[in-house]
């Protein structure tokens, strides 16, 4: 199955020379004999190439802020941006007794031409007033779309005034779509705001229970985080906040007291994780709850961090029971899936995480990549010092944090941390590339043209990506699984999720539909009969 440079060149040949040179740097054939393989990432999208990337607004409001359920998220701009980010990520959230769950709402200032000409500040102020009156939320966010920065609306000032007027947090995010090169810029902007305006605002000064943790970068798509919480709670963890799936301001404001932060999606949330460590002394652990093996490893790493024999024992008990329960089921599905190949191209971390779940089923990921990741998501965090900031990344304000005088509390000693780092990914992420097999492809910012050509070249059995590109392989007769929204299925995380995924994927392979691609008259005569000769 291995690919060589020639194959890639023959595909890139179709591009204009400059584009070809550019794209080549975003494609790597894994070769473990080399000391290090660099990949270009988080650079500008090539105009006219049909990318799957979105904008900073999508990363900020759509990904990070959107799932916070007790806050009303106002999109300040013309109607489109708000409309298109309405519930499209399928984050799930339970409504609690207070009834404050506004996930199903799309609220926008719906700016008209006159607002663009004369400014939208007044309208925004009125909309905030109305929203507070209608919903009585625990907070309000305002996310700016492209025109806002250009016409110079001072959303921070409006938010500040509204906050004073209403006595609830009103937070402004300047996440205009043209900032940065993709959603990634928006994650960063949102992370800064969450840390500045939500974290640390709660009353708690110390962890309310033993083994208190936060789960960062988990968005509860299709109910993922509920499945993860199920076994974490059983083992004995106390979850303070999830950022941000089924999350709430009420919980996020106490994030600072946890003993450990788990990082699921590294790309979208690593800024908060890092800042929480500096400001409150809480280290983070890279986990992956996608796939049985990955889940088991993550649980063991967590137990090692706390080092409590009782917790370790309980962890092992739960693992043993869960694995014994799901393995026989998965083995049934594996019989069908084994030996097949997949493409796995998703946004930030799933391009890596889902390889583990495919591997559980005996499916090899022959091409993987991220839509909007940075080099560290591919090559590991050790390359961060080598990443040169460019004009686009410099546009995103870095939040400068210091240790909080009152609330900073070193959760483990520096010596202990060093010792742990040898065993577990504490405050570290190794990246996707390390786990790819030799000869397999890593492609950053895969586009429609390349999708078609790589599918032709490698003929995967399943294509895991999103709604925009899934129909290309599907039209070529290859089943496509949406890993962004799960095609209205899920959960896919944890033990139960692995079973659900296996069931869904196997059903896609075994549906009788694929048998009818070629009409019968193409391969066999429809009517069989003998011609009786006359006169016999």
């Amino acid at each position, binding site marked *: 199955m291995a690919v060589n440079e020639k194959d890639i060149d023959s595909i890139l040949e*179709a*591009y*204009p020379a400059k584009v070809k040179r550019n794209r080549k740097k975003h494609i790597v054939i894994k070769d473990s004999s080399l000391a290090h393989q660099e990949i270009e990432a988080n650079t500008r*999208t*090539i*105009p*006219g190439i*049909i*990318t*799957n*990337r*979105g*904008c900073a607004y*999508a990363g900020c409001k759509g990904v990070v802020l959107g799932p916070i359920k007790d806050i009303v998220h106002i999109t300040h*701009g*013309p*109607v*489109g*941006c*708000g*409309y298109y980010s*309405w519930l*499209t990520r399928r984050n799930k959230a339970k409504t609690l007794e207070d009834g404050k769950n506004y996930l*199903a*709402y*799309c*609220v*926008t*200032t*719906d*700016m*008209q*031409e006159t607002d*663009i000409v004369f400014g939208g500040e007044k309208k925004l102020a*009125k909309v905030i007033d*109305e*929203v507070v009156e*209608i919903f009585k939320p625990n907070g309000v966010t305002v996310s700016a*779309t*492209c*025109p806002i*920065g*250009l016409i110079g609306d001072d959303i921070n000032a409006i938010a500040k005034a509204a906050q004073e007027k209403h006595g609830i947090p009103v937070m402004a995010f300047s996440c205009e*779509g*043209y*900032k*940065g*090169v*993709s959603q990634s810029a928006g994650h960063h902007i949102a992370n800064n705001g969450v840390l500045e305006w939500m974290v640390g605002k709660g009353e708690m000064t110390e962890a309310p229970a033993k083994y208190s943790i936060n789960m960062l970068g988990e968005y509860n798509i299709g109910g993922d985080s509920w499945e993860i919480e199920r076994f974490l709670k059983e083992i004995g963890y106390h979850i303070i906040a999830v950022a941000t799936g089924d999350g709430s301001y009420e919980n996020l404001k106490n994030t600072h007291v946890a003993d450990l932060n788990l990082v699921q999606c590294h790309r979208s949330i690593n800024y908060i994780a890092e800042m929480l460590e500096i400001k409150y002394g809480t280290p983070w652990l890279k986990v992956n709850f996608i796939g049985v093996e990955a889940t088991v490893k993550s649980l063991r790493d967590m137990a090692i961090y706390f080092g409590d024999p009782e917790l370790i024992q309980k962890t092992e008990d739960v693992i043993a029971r869960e694995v014994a329960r799901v393995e026989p089921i998965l083995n049934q599905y594996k019989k069908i899936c084994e030996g097949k190949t997949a493409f796995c191209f998703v946004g930030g971390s799933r391009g890596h995480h889902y390889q583990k779940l495919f591997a559980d089923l005996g499916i090899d990921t022959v091409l993987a990549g991220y839509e909007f990741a940075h080099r560290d998501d591919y090559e590991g965090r050790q390359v961060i010092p080598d990443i040169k900031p460019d004009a686009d990344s410099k546009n995103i304000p870095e939040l400068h944090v210091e240790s909080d005088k009152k609330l900073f509390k070193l959760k483990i000693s520096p010596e202990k941390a060093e010792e742990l780092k040898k065993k577990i990914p504490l405050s570290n992420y190794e990246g996707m590339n390390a786990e790819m097999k030799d000869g397999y492809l890593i492609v950053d910012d895969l586009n*429609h043209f390349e999708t*078609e050509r790589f599918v032709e070249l490698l003929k995967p059995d399943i294509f895991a990506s999103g*709604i*925009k*590109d899934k*129909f*290309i392989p599907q*039209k*070529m*007769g290859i089943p496509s699984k949406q890993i962004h929204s799960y095609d*209205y299925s899920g959960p896919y995380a944890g033990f139960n999720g692995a079973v659900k995924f296996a069931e869904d994927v196997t059903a896609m392979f075994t549906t009788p539909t694929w048998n009818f691609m070629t009409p019968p008259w193409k391969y066999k005569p429809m009517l069989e009969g003998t011609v009786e000769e006359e006169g016999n």
Partner: protein
Amino acid sequence: MKRDKANYRNVNENPCNMCMPMGGILPFKGVEQSMVILHGSQGCATYMRRHIAEHFNEPIDVASSALNEKGTVYGGEKNRKQGLDNLIKLYSPGIIGILTTCLAETIGEDIGRITSDYRNEHELHRLPIITVPTPGYGGSHTEGYWLAAKQIVSGLARQTPRHSKINIIVPHISPADIREIKRILDRMDIDFTLFPDFSDTLDRPFSKTYKKIPNGGTRIADIAAMPGAAATVQIGITIDDDLSPGRFLEREFGVPLYNVPIPTGLENMDLFMNVLTEITGSCMPLSLEQERGRLLDCMIDSHKYNFEGRSVIFGEPELVYAVAKTCMENGIFPVVAATGSKNAKLAELLTAEIDKYERQVVLLMDSDFDQIRQNSTSAGANIAIGHSDGRYLTEREGIPLVRLGFPIHDRVGGQRVLSVGYLGTTMLLDRVTNTLLENKYKNYRSSMYEQFYHNGHENNISGKILLSGTEG
């Protein structure tokens, strides 16, 4: 007749419309070998592709000039040119549409000039490039659709000697609807140019060889020859003259224009047939007459269920009009008719229809779903007809939804929903009636008990319950 003109609040809570460039993409998808590039930041293109793809279940290739912060300061010309270079190299399109977005318009990009410079530099005299200014704040997707359609026609149309074809211009209906209209025209032996024809491009049959630009779409040469047609039948009675491709052909080339409503509903379809027979001299084929008879039969079969229906209808103006009329013919009287667009004509046209029946209907222009919901509950609506975002009415108020229009993103088959012609109307009406029936059966026992025994006997005898809606 009550009419709420504009929404009374500043906030738009759960919008009922999308932005202008989104609608502008669709007519381009109905031209053969065409590609679209959005001039602005990439996010808009990505969002729109995702929404269109989800409805049609098709890959939607729409490029973007991917402007970034630098572009907003120094202008986006470089990105646009580079974008066009790449698009042409990879896709070899036969025509390119350039739509602007909020960003490009706010920074004041002169796309007309950039485009003509580009053409001259590249000596691309034969590749049509059509530009459409579609700032998101300039209107809803409906206006974007019509403006793009008009720009395509005005950009391609050439003085042409009279020929025997007629022009059929269609609004944003489903690929299945377009196919049905073509079938009807074929049955009548009419020679026509239908534009924009996205019946194949946005609903392509499975074939294992993938084509980046799908087959199908109105031929560019046919659009160019539209000025020579005997007449234009434009399915678009709610559109402004400024946005009307048919009006353009009439004014510039003297092609007589017949504006008709979407042929959904018996009367609307009769009108469509009348216009066609009158202009072309073709007669109504027997098979279509039989389809009409079957529709009537369907209406009669269902009338005893339909009169209990109190409908709320929402979506694009053209669709709202046609569906409202269909509902009225069948006694499923609309209590709320709403659109997210600002459309004065729709209000006028609907008012005239409603007045015939002396009914109370709340008309909501420039509306959002919160307003629609509030009015629906207070008017006692029991069936909703419109696109998927109306599911909110079901979730919040238990009003069942018949999915029609765009987008249908929480069910499959939006591209296959057929609701035009006698046949399509029959299919739509059955869906509506069956939804009413299903809902009735669901609550049958409890509501019967309530009605006859719990509230005392007099109530039902007086007939108040069933007829209370008609007084409202």
